[in-house]
């Protein structure tokens, strides 16, 4: 059933002690895709011991509720590990999705990467 190769869905960059994550995909949809993105995000906390994670949504144009579930789990994992998860560069349309679901209250969201980095 697997039609897509298991390629890396995240681009990582270390800025000081913060791991900045950029999404490769413009659309975070598709069960299989979301599953892989989730695994790669969780791996940062579980195996790579990253504790300061910044998700940059600059490339993302579309996401569904299934993707929100992964972000909630990631947030919980980071908090349990004593770390911090911050998000930035979220398109207006996607920000509205966060607002409707009230997740804008749960996540720490900043307009750009500069401001987000200062939040750690």
């Amino acid at each position, binding site marked *: 059933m697997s039609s897509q190769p298991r390629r890396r869905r995240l681009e990582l960059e270390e800025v000081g002690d913060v791991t900045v994550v950029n999404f490769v995909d413009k659309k975070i*949809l598709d*069960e*299989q895709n979301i599953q892989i993105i989730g695994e790669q995000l969780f791996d940062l906390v579980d195996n790579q011991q990253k504790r300061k994670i910044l998700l940059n949504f600059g490339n993302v144009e579309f996401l569904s*509720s299934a993707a929100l579930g992964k972000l909630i789990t990631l947030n919980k994992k980071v908090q349990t590990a004593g770390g911090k998860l911050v998000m930035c560069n979220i398109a207006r*349309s996607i920000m509205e*999705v966060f607002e409707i679901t009230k997740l804008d209250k749960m996540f720490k969201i900043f307009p750009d990467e500069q401001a987000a980095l200062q939040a750690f």
Partner: protein
Amino acid sequence: MNQPDSPHYPTRVSIPSDLEEARQLQDQIEQQLMEVGGFSEAEIFAIKLALEEALVNAIKHGNQMDRSKMVHVAFRLETGRFDIQIADEGPGFDPDDVPDCTDPENLERPCGRGLLLMRHYMNRIDYIPPGNIVVMSKWSKNGQA
């Protein structure tokens, strides 16, 4: 059970419970939305998101990813107006039983977030008992419907 005001749907498609098949159908509908026009960019985003959530619900929760079960989609598109009915072959559900995912207590649970988004983004959404058929409509704010 008929909807008294259910529109006539000129296009009817049945797909197996496969997310890739759903993706192809979504791409076709998006293409037609662009062609028929009358919707703003934000309205097209709204329709795409509601369609994604409804099809994933039908395939995952309704048909339990069973490829032998079909998802029956019927829709009508005209300038600034989109009507769609999505039926799965599952037992249905009562949307009132889905917990409120905006309740702080439920915020971290995977509960009804897709349903909430569908309700927000479409002008009309109804589940036909026993809950395996969803009917949704979106019309443009520009009054072109």
